[in-house]
């Protein structure tokens, strides 16, 4: 019996240590894998610029995004793709910095910038006065406006017609802010979802009467979902918005590099090229 217990102890210890070691091993390889992945992605997209400056700037900036906002950002398999991803890669190449893209989600993106786990935020973020108080933004790189999405047979013609109706938005987006501005901060028809696809899903399910979100995102649905019947409405009260690349307040050095890269790709036509690839014209 005594011997049995000792054996049991030794066995548990061995297995426990084994698991621990195996865990460390896989954690190590897990960390190196994504870094290698982005390296190849970066060198594929713009070959020489990055490799030439590698020695000078070997810091890899962490870029956070909420990859549920096509066509700006989405997950394709385990790769982040979309307009914003191409823009930030082009900006980084032009500015000679290295970036690693990661999906953080919308709210954790802002939180990550606060705590320093994320250096750069690009996620169709509209530059607003409220956000400017807490974060610094680059020059604008995209112009957007809000649109209202309703079923085809809806009688809604403008934002004011939505009074008393249920409106789906993505929580804490400018879409939610225009609804709050029109109907009050605690308007009880307002449904804030964690992502925009969920809100659009709810429109198709008839659980909300309208969705308010950025034009390019909703127009992307029109292209993709030809079997659903809905229409998009523009309200004159919606102001033009500008998307900016976000960094921690006071990080002037990084912001300078981003603006430098952004100006370069604006001048050499790269930005227009990416824009054309995603939005036509």
């Amino acid at each position, binding site marked *: 019996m005594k011997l049995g217990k000792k054996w049991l102890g030794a066995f548990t210890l061995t297995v426990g240590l084994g698991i621990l070691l195996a865990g460390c091993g896989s954690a190590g390889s897990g960390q190196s894998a994504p870094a290698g992945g982005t390296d190849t992605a970066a060198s594929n997209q713009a070959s020489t610029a990055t490799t030439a400056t590698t020695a000078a700037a070997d810091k890899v900036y962490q870029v956070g995004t909420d990859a549920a906002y096509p066509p700006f950002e989405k997950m394709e398999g385990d790769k982040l793709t979309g307009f914003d991803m191409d823009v930030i890669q082009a900006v980084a190449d032009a500015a000679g910095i290295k970036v690693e893209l990661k999906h953080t989600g*919308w*709210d954790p993106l*802002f*939180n990550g910038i606060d705590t320093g786990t994320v250096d750069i935020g690009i996620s169709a973020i509209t530059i607003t006065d*409220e956000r400017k108080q*807490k974060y610094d933004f680059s020059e604008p790189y995209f112009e957007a406006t809000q649109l209202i999405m309703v079923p085809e047979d809806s009688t809604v013609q403008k934002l004011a017609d939505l009074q008393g109706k*249920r409106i*789906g938005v993505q*929580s*804490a987006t400018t879409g*939610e*802010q225009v609804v*709050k501005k029109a109907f009050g*901060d*605690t308007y*009880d028809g307002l*449904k*804030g*979802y*964690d992502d925009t696809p*969920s809100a659009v*899903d*709810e429109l198709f*399910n*008839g*659980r909300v009467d309208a969705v308010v979100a950025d034009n390019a995102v909703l127009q992307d649905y029109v292209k993709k979902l030809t079997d659903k019947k809905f229409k998009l409405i523009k309200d004159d009260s919606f102001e033009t918005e500008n998307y900016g690349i976000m960094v921690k307040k006071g990080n002037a050095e990084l912001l300078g590099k981003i603006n430098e890269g952004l100006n370069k790709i604006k001048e050499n036509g790269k930005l227009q090229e990416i824009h054309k690839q995603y939005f036509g014209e």
Partner: protein
Amino acid sequence: MDWGVIAKYEDLLVRCLFNTILLTVVATICGTILGLFIGLGKMSKNPLWKVPSSVYVELFRGTPMFVQILLIHFAFIPSIWNAVFPDAEIPGPLFSGFVALSLNAAAYIAEIFRAGIQSIDPGQMEAARSLGMKTSLAMRLIVLPQAFLRMLPALGNEFIALLKDSSLLAVIATEELGYFAFSVAKNTFERYPPYLTTAAIYLVLTLFLSRVVVRGLERRFSPK
């Protein structure tokens, strides 16, 4: 840190608090009724009752509630509704919340019932049967009342878990306290005020449940 945001969102807070309580009460009642049948089913000798009951418990106990909520709200309810009532409007997130919480609670409550009933000496049932009672009558009059008393602490735990788990419904935009916390935090960029306020309210609610409701029930049902 600006605690003023709580006052600014007071209307939302009141609605969310009300819904959290409503969700917990409804899910407790529906979950207990459904859980009793499933718990009895697990002990039944009839395979048509026993097998589905066992499968039900394993399914709901073995999958995360978060996933259950997403499945029920975005997949099952729209599909079923469209098939059964093609012209009616699909019910909103609060209804999905009632369904998801009740179904989940039923699985756990079923196990509590089974444990409670099996803890009663089989001699009690045998004695009742030998006096001429039918099994169902003996179960109702002799076994269940005794089992219920033994189950109360475990049921109390389950109700407290239910109250806290209702916060997961935030993801489908059910207006309950979890939704209040994340909606206010996201929109105001304030972290401590909305999250701490919400945590404090949950604590008050769970303390009330454990100290007043469960203890009161125990006192009420214990033999003098």
